[in-house]
């Protein structure tokens, strides 16, 4: 580690953050790292907005009556919570922030294949975001994030067209990011970086990008069809003018089911990176994990009908979708087993990123197992459209994806900023979020089993106690989420210098200074070893200390 000491003494060199300082240099940047930071700020803003709506929902649900808000407002709250969290936070979260920042670094490249396209993606994301803000200012939208017809085509009193337009534009941001990643991974790997030497984070993003490119256009089409029907009364989904209301559900879920894999696969990539580093061990079953990402991406396209078991779709259709859903569960199970096996005989460090990953393992496993309940025909009939679904979805998306996102952010933050955050506070945040999350969402499984439908703000008295528990948990979770908002920005000013490789991690991104220079590598690196070439017998002294 003598090189690190030498670096610490060296004068700080220009890096991607300080090379130019004007606002314009940020708004017109084509540096993938700066665009990653732009996304980081943007999705944090949307996360706070979505979180605020969630808080209002939970407060309203404290009592069985409507006291904080009336029906129309409540319906707008859960709709905007869903739209913002899914389209403006979860979908871009890991790919657009960490993927943008890290893919070229992990591949040994100077930038993504299409740097200007990358910037365009960010602007499209914001145009979509502005639509969402306008919808909000204009009185909101009340269709739920699912936009089900014919409610959305004629009955809704909200700004359906504007909201759909926002989703449509934001979709292109996602498509272009996916395209950019695919080309970059194919064409810009450093010499010696063969497909099976790629970090699993890259494999996960490759699978994600395939889905983004292939599925998102279908979302765009469905949203356009809603607008056409709503504005010009062309009968597509509304049966009174000759449409088929269930057709929309097919189109919508053809995107939106793969979209949950857009949201979870990158998280799985993060977990593979973090768990190897903090157990100082090679990943167990590299090939199986890589291929299971692809299997999820492909099978994920064939299971959309499991959202429609009670929608009057034909009995045999339901059976086919159910068995395919069982099959898509297997690659996820394999990953969980492989991650667990990676811990065996490792040197396990309980740093904050690892704590988030432990949280991910527990919560994602619960989310995955309860997914079986919803994919099995008979069980789904009872649980469909109840709080059980809400709980399952949040276990996967928040317990899984948000935990993984935070794990990744804590893992690569020193790389992105050159600074170390307060590790004790970070550990506290991980624990608070894990505990608060379970308090919030576990009672919702029981509420669902009892039969409390989702999207009810007025409910039967027998459901109250569980709802109060859920709201209390949300408070704990909320504090957990606010902590990083304090200690992470603070680290920019008071944090220790991180050095190039504070976690003593493997991977090309750790071979360059923190923060990296604009073009990442002074010389194109040559890769000569497998990924995760950790030695599990060595104690990693000084990990996380910074310089």
């Amino acid at each position, binding site marked *: 580690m003598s090189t690190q000491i030498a670096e610490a003494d060296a004068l700080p060199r220009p890096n991607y953050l300080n090379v130019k300082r004007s606002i314009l240099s940020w708004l017109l940047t084509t540096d993938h790292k700066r665009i990653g930071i732009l996304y980081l700020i943007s999705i944090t803003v949307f996360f706070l907005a979505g979180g605020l709506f969630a808080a209002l929902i939970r407060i309203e649900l404290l009592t069985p009556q409507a006291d904080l808000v009336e029906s129309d407002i409540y319906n707008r709250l859960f709709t905007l919570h869903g739209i913002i969290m899914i389209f403006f936070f979860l979908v871009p979260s890991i790919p657009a922030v960490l993927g943008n920042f890290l893919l070229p670094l992990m591949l040994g490249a100077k930038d993504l294949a299409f740097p200007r396209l990358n910037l365009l993606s960010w602007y499209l994301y914001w145009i979509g975001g502005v639509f969402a803000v306008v919808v909000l200012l204009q009185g909101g939208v009340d269709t739920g994030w699912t936009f089900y017809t014919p409610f959305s085509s004629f009955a809704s009193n909200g700004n359906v067209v504007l909201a759909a337009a926002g989703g449509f534009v934001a979709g292109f941001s996602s498509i272009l990011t996916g395209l950019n990643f695919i080309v970059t991974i194919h064409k810009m790997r450093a010499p010696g970086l063969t497909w099976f030497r790629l970090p699993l984070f890259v494999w996960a993003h490759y699978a994600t990008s395939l889905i983004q490119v292939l599925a998102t256009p279908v979302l765009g089409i469905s949203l356009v069809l809603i607008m056409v029907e709503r504005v010009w009364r062309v009968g597509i989904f509304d049966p009174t003018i000759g449409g088929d209301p269930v057709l929309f559900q097919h189109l919508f879920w053809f995107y939106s089911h793969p979209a949950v894999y857009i949201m979870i696969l990158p998280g799985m990539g993060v977990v593979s990176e973090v768990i190897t580093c903090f157990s100082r061990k090679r990943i167990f079953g590299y090939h199986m994990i890589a291929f299971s990402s692809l299997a999820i991406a492909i099978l994920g396209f064939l299971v959309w009908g499991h959202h429609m078991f009670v929608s*009057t779709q034909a009995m045999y259709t339901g059976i086919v979708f159910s068995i395919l859903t069982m099959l898509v569960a297997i690659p996820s199970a*394999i990953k969980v087993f492989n991650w667990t096996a990676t811990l065996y005989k490792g040197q396990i460090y309980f740093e904050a990123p690892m704590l988030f990953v*432990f949280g991910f393992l527990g919560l994602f496993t619960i989310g995955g197992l309860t997914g079986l309940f919803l994919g099995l025909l008979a069980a789904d009939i009872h649980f469909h459209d109840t709080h059980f679904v809400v709980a399952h979805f949040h276990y996967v998306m928040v317990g899984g994806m948000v935990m993984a996102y935070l794990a990744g952010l804590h893992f690569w933050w020193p790389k992105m900023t050159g600074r170390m955050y307060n590790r004790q506070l970070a550990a506290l945040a991980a624990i608070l979020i894990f505990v608060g999350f379970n308090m919030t969402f576990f009672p919702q499984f029981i509420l669902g*089993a009892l039969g409390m439908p989702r999207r009810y703000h007025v409910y039967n008295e027998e459901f109250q106690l569980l709802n109060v528990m859920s709201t209390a948990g949300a408070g704990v979770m909320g504090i957990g989420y606010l902590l990083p908002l304090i200690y992470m920005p603070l680290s920019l000013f008071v944090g220790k210098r991180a050095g190039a490789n504070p976690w003593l991690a493997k991977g090309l991104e750790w071979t360059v200074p923190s923060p990296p220079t604009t073009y990442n590598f002074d010389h194109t690196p040559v890769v000569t070893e497998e990924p995760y070439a950790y030695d599990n017998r060595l104690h990693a002294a000084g990990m996380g200390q910074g310089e």
Partner: protein
Amino acid sequence: MQNLPIYPEQASTIARDFDLFLFVLLGLSVFFLGLIVLLVVFFSIRYRAGSRVNRELKSPDNYKLEIFWTVVPTLLVLLLFGWSTKIYFNYFRVPENAQEIFVTGKQWMWKTQHLNGRREINELHVPVNTPIKLTMTSEDVIHSLFVPEFRVKKDVLPGTYSTLWFEATKTGVFNLFCAEYCGTEHALMKGNVYVMELPEYQRWLEEGNTGDIAMASSGEHLFNRMGCVVCHREGSGARGPALTGLFGSEVQLTGGETTVADEAYLRESIMNPKAHVVAGYTPLMPTFEGQLSQDDIAQLISYIKSLDDAGDPGSAS
């Protein structure tokens, strides 16, 4: 708020099958979750950084183990799939003798009508230990009828019929919810199912039925008034197919397809006659879209069904 319920009562025949399946599924899930949690905790403690344990690995990979944990879960989920699908078939297998009740969902209420004509709003009275078939449609958007204690749920669509059946095994009052988000007062679109002993139910049916006429009789009246009878009469040379014995039978369509004449087919043939024309007939019939209410259609269908019971439209139920 005093007690903490965690699972709804079991009050239908299908709920028994469902609950057994669910508890096995839950047991397996808890087992796998427990396994993962135990292993993660155990490894984390035993292999914490710096602990003095043997860390020599024979090989980094273990394909046999990976195949094991791929194959075993696959077999398990396929078994679960088989069992669940077997129960799922029961949801579609409506017993022959099921008693029919018509349900109309609209923003934001449930309207029901029994065959003798008695109507209810946000209430559904049914006899215990009797299979009940709900024939459901919506006047506006998609709703979904859900009775947690029966473990049944089915979407209710505008423009077509969906069916749901159950057989209550307990008397009592149960929740009836709309499960599909349907707009402003979605959360208020709920009511109660009252399960009664059969004689009590029959008394209930009669006592409230002062003004109402049996659905099939109303249907017959409509059938004559709307002029349906002109074409759909018995005997050869009629311009439309005869309707006696039609319900539930297989119909040969123009173009070679066949279909079963169920509620949804009859409804479509009234509202959109040209969609599926019976073989050998010219598509002359006009649409009745906009001329018939949901109630009218349900009554006409009840009448057509009653033509099966030896032409005695009065003997509904």
